[in-house]
């Protein structure tokens, strides 16, 4: 009987195992994922955030603006191969005529530029772009009903535009036919802007996706769904848009004759092999939305993504400090490019808090903070410690300048703290440090706390959801807060405005710093065109903030990007929205290199 039972159990067990094996087979464990390299020139990209949509007026983040700029175009663009950043005409025929008072800008448009074919146009044939399209597109940016995320760019800048916006704020419908004094289509191909006050950075606005040309018929045809139906004049047309997964573009067959530049800065001379070739250089772009860094990194190593910013967690396995990339990556033909970003990280004092009107206290805390260790801990030692607010790469940054209160100098910090009236921190209340709720922000906060404890300053780290932190900053209820700023355009004014008194929160000056001398210099510089005089003023302001310590400066980050040997003309840049049209893929090289991956 016992034997019989045993046999039955064995039979039952065998059946169970066979079920398990069948499931394993269904799962297809033996499937192989090797793929043939396509003969088409396909650019495979990955982005780490979901795309907000394809409407230029909402493209306020890096990812959305890159996508928008594949389809839409503006009057100007940055020269692809020149540094410092230089504006050149894109849809404009030439650079504008600017009146002597710097208030009137007249543009001539390129003729024969057409929108992509779409059912919104008669016979579904894309019509020619005219000056009226820019008038319409810029009015859309100002339309109070649309709540455009780029309105700040032209707020108060164009004569009559604010009045037009205000007029329709409380009315049910906005009248686009009503003329705005400072925004006119003089004829089919001539566009005129009249500024309300001198704004030397105005031309940068016209290279930003917010001001790119859209066609009225398309906006009206798709209504609220316009955000999913981009129809521009750009080098690519959208063929598939899955906002949370994948975006595909194909070469615009009716793209105007635009060629790869034949001039460059010395560092990009090697890219001139494509000079004179018709753009775009690739047939198709596939953008994969991969929020997590591991799949991006693994896909890059398999050659399924053409270039990648090195994820923080993979940095040590990719780069040897001071030597470049690892031998393993070199053997695969992978290249590294390192570019300073136009940004600054900082810890801001709330200057409405009486405690921080004590300059010596601010200086003491700055001297106690160790940006070098912070750099090693949080940026893999790749960032550049910030001496002041303006980052390297733009006029106003002072090469070789040393901030007198640059840390870590504990001896100086203790001395300054005593002079401030708080020897060894005695009598100083606990200071709260507010930061966003991410892990890295908390770690930076804890590091700051530990640094300050060395001179007896007690810090309490408080994490906040991002809207809550912003609310606290706007309502002036913070004491200290850690944050960063990235440039909107390559001009020091974009950084210095963060410390201009009249911009006090709820404006851009979140810390509420107000220094009369600085304010005067800013006002003078703000109306000057790029010139040695303006640079001297920027430098002076840069020194003032280094010495007066309205913030404790952190670092200017650098971006480390790896790209495969088959990707040609890759340049890492802060302002590269239209870059995809200049990139090239060497299919033969890709086939060869893929064997090693």
């Amino acid at each position, binding site marked *: 009987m016992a034997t019989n*039972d045993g046999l*039955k*159990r064995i039979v*039952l*067990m065998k059946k*169970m195992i066979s*079920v*398990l094996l069948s*499931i394993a087979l269904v*799962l*297809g*464990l*033996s*499937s*192989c*994922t090797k793929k043939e390299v396509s003969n088409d020139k396909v650019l495979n990209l990955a982005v780490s955030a*979901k795309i*907000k*949509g394809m*409407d230029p007026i909402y493209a*306020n*983040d890096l990812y959305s603006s890159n996508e928008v700029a594949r389809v839409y175009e503006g009057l100007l663009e940055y020269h692809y191969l020149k540094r410092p950043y230089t504006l050149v005409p894109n849809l404009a025929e030439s650079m504008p005529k600017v009146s002597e008072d710097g208030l009137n800008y007249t543009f001539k448009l390129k003729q024969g530029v057409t929108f992509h074919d779409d059912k919104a146009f008669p016979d579904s044939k894309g019509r020619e772009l005219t000056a009226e399209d820019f008038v319409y597109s810029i009015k859309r940016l100002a339309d*109070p*009903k649309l*709540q455009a*995320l780029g*309105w*700040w*760019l032209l*707020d108060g800048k164009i004569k009559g535009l604010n009045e037009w916006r205000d007029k329709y*704020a409380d009315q049910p419908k906005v009248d686009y036919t009503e003329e705005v004094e400072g925004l006119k289509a003089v004829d089919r191909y001539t566009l005129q802007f009249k500024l309300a006050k001198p704004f030397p950075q105005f031309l940068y606005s016209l290279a930003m996706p917010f001001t790119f040309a859209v066609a009225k018929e398309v906006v009206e045809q798709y209504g*609220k769904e316009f*955000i*999913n139906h981009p129809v521009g004049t750009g080098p690519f047309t959208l063929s598939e848009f*899955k*906002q*949370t*997964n*994948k975006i595909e573009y194909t070469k615009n067959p009716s793209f105007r004759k635009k060629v790869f530049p034949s001039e460059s800065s010395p560092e990009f001379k090697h890219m001139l092999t494509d000079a004179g070739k018709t753009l775009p250089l690739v047939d198709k772009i596939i953008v*994969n*939305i*991969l*929020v*997590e860094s*591991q*799949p991006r990194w*693994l*896909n890059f*190593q*398999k050659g*399924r993504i053409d270039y990648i910013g090195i994820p923080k967690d993979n940095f040590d396995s990719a780069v040897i400090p001071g030597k470049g990339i690892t031998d393993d990556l070199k053997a695969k033909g992978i290249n590294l490019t390192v570019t300073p970003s136009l940004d600054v990280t900082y810890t801001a004092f709330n200057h409405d808090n009486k405690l921080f009107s004590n300059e010596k206290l601010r200086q003491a805390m700055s001297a106690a903070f160790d940006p070098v260790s912070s750099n090693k801990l949080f940026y893999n030692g790749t960032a550049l410690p910030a001496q002041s607010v303006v980052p390297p790469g733009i006029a106003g940054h002072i090469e070789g300048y040393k901030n007198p209160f640059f840390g870590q100098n504990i001896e100086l910090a203790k001395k300054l703290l005593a002079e401030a009236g708080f020897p060894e921190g005695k009598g100083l209340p606990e200071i709260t440090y507010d930061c966003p709720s991410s892990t890295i922000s908390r770690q930076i906060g804890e590091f700051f706390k530990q640094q300050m404890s060395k001179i007896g300053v007690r810090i309490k780290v408080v994490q906040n*959801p*991002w*809207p*809550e932190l*912003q*609310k606290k900053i*706007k309502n002036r209820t913070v004491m200290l807060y850690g944050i960063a700023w990235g440039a909107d355009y390559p001009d020091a004014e974009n950084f210095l405005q963060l410390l201009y008194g009249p911009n006090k929160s*709820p*404006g851009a000056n979140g810390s509420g710093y107000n220094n009369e001398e600085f304010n005067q210099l800013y006002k003078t510089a703000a109306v000057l065109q790029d010139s040695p005089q303006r640079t001297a003023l920027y430098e002076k302001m840069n020194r003032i903030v280094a010495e007066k310590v309205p913030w404790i400066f952190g670092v200017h980050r650098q971006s480390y990007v790896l790209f495969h040997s088959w990707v040609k003309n890759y340049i890492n840049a802060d302002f590269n929205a239209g870059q995809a049209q200049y990139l090239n893929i060497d299919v033969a090289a890709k086939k060869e290199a893929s064997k090693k991956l």
Partner: protein
Amino acid sequence: MNIWVYVLRRLLYVVPILLGVCLIIFVLFNVVAGDPTHLLLGKHATARQMAELRHELGLDRPWFYQYFDLVKSAFTFDFGRSWSTKQTISTMISEGALPSLTLTIPGFVITTILSVSLSLLVSFYRGSFFDKSSVIFCVGLMSISSLAYILFGQWFFAYYMDWFEISGYDSGFPNFIPYIQLPVLIWVILSIGPDLRFYRTVMLDEVYQDYVRTARSKGLNEKVILFKHVLKNAMIPIVTYVVIQIPFLILGALLIESFFGIPGLGGITLNAINSSDFPVIRAMTILSAVAYILFSVLTDVLYTVVDPRVRLK
């Protein structure tokens, strides 16, 4: 009581429950979470723009109007548009539900079949080395973080061994299959520990019942005892456990979807939370509440099917 009357009465409970869910959501987002306009307008937001946006979104209206809108959307399922992506939420849900289900249904079905079968097997071998090993195995599986399985699985099976796709998704059958194989495998590994432990307990409860001893003394073979008697009697806890998990299948798997680039509802929810996209979070919460209520009614009805002794009152 007629089953349909019972179902209708239970469905009527949806009304007060949804009102309560709406109230909780409303308090959480309108009182606790603060003003989302800064996040929506970005770093250049001005006080005026924020006020204009609040007006546009209706956030400056009296609270009872806002609460009424919330309740209305819960009953009409018209959730409007996402604040951050400007897409219609119903489209986002309909497009995200399928990818989520292509991952979660196979994972769920395989896990349930496997764990119920294995639980029968271990209860058959109760007290043996095999049974003890299975308990240790379950505890071991459960002790490791889900992230570890995902990171290792993706690196080893997809990247190093090249057996599966690293990430991505193609819609339409059978295009999606290569992309869900590894995520499903990881789902099974993640779920089998707790499921097997649960079903084992259920089966062992039954195995020691008098009727099993009676069946054995009558000379019935073990297969008949296990499949015909034990499994049938264990169906009530199994049905409860299985059916109540179904609503969560629609909502997807947050981490797995995120790491494997599957455009499901899990990823949409995660993104909405990160960007304070109140309408999307609201929609997902209401959707899960409704699904939960409906499936708990279904569970009750199924009790009567699997156990005729159960009467609905």
